[in-house]
């Protein structure tokens, strides 16, 4: 794709060219400079698109729920982009991406674009390039963008800052009321979906969740978080989930809600880009100098502590870049 030029590539993405979009997301995943250049031309004002997040532990039914949501939005004539993140192995780097399989009913629908992403060591429940991939899908013109996180534990809450409405998928077997009282993941949802309510324990789980949510202090003003029972494999309860999403969208867009969302997204996006850029510049600087190995050996030998080592490397870097600036 890179042979067609930046502007042409961006144009193709905006014209909903699936291959151009797919290649761009791959370039984003590989952190290629060309991806950043194309993205610069794909800025979409926040608000046009409905951006949803779906999170919850492994096996809770996130992908099945997303598949139901795709179906519901398609019935309403909306096009949908989905980013489904699954974990990479920290040991081999490999990944088994199994989310698309649950959404394959929509595989043939040209109004739906699904992309699986491996987390590649990025923490927080998303992949490093997820924010950029969201932008690609918005640029393609999708009315709705859904981000499905990896199966999250308790504090993978990054998705909350990037989406307008966040759904948390739980099941009746998630544990006792103590789990519902913990901080972290329970605090980020605007809609809680209690999935698999065809299993035993539905009433008890509903009650415990409602009690826990009522006691929450981190809350969006005027938005008591609803708990919706559902069975994602049969579609039961999906109408109610859609109603609650719509209600929250209306609520969120009141006053300066969209502006607040744009701000928190920009803040998160900015910090990701800055961290990435700093890391890239510093590692580019160190690569091939033998500094890394030298300091690691020193640390292992007990000659230096890691904090001092990093301070020394940073000092060298700053000294060199000052010289560089003077030369320029």
């Amino acid at each position: 794709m890179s042979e067609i030029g930046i502007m042409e590539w961006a144009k193709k993405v905006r014209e909903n060219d699936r291959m151009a979009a797919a290649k761009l997301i791959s370039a984003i995943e590989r952190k290629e400079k060309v991806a950043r250049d194309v993205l610069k031309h794909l800025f979409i004002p926040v608000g046009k698109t409905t951006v949803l997040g779906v999170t919850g532990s492994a096996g809770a039914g996130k992908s099945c729920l997303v598949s139901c949501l795709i179906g519901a939005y398609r019935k309403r004539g909306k096009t949908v982009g989905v980013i489904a993140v699954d974990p990479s192995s920290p040991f081999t780097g490999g990944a088994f991406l199994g989310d698309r399989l649950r959404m394959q009913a929509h595989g043939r629908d040209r109004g739906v674009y699904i992309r699986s992403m491996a987390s590649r060591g990025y923490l927080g429940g998303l992949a490093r390039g997820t924010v950029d991939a969201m932008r690609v899908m918005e640029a393609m013109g999708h009315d709705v963008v859904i981000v499905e996180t990896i199966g999250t534990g308790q504090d993978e809450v990054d998705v909350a800052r990037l989406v307008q409405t966040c759904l948390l998928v739980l099941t009746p077997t998630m544990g006792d009321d103590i789990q519902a009282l913990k901080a972290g993941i329970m605090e980020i949802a605007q809609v809680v979906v209690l999935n698999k309510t065809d299993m035993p324990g539905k009433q008890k789980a509903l009650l415990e969740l409602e009690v826990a949510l009522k006691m929450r202090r981190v809350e969006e003003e005027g938005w008591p978080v609803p708990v919706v029972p559902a069975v994602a494999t049969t579609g039961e309860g999906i109408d109610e989930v859609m109603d609650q999403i719509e209600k929250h969208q209306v609520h969120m867009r009141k006053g300066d809600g969209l502006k607040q969302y744009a701000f928190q997204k920009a803040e998160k996006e900015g910090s990701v880009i800055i961290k990435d850029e700093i890391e890239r510049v510093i590692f580019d600087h160190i690569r091939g100098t033998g500094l890394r190995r030298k300091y690691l050996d020193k640390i292992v030998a007990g000659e230096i502590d890691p904090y001092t080592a990093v301070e020394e490397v940073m000092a060298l870097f700053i000294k060199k870049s000052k010289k560089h600036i003077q030369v320029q």
Partner: protein
Amino acid sequence: MKKAKEKNKDGKIKVLMTKVGLDGHDRGVKVIASLLKEAGMEVVYLGMYLMPKDIVDAAIDEDVDVIGISLLSAGHLVFTPLIVEEMKKGGLDDVLLILGGVIPPEDIPILKEMGVHEVFPAGSLTEPIVTYIRNHVRR
């Protein structure tokens, strides 16, 4: 040249693994998918009962380097030309197409003639599959 180098450094090999048509045996394809994951590849697993166009559409959206298809239904000579045709239509000239499963040895040259890059029939050792993909992924 520089381009290829850059890709190899950060780029993961991405593989689409799936079954085609009415073929309900998915143990083998899952084993191979796991094997490729263990070898450090990113594997999108699509499951069973897919039609050729579904597979190629998914391969485009996911920008995979390899399409791996498991066939235990004796449908390989029927489905393969359809898949190759869809790949051509979709512009996937640089994607490897690999077959596995119950495939009689005498059919392998026919499949290769049709446009399959390599065939690993039942009984294949695992290491050659990984090595083949690593050596032949076109980037």
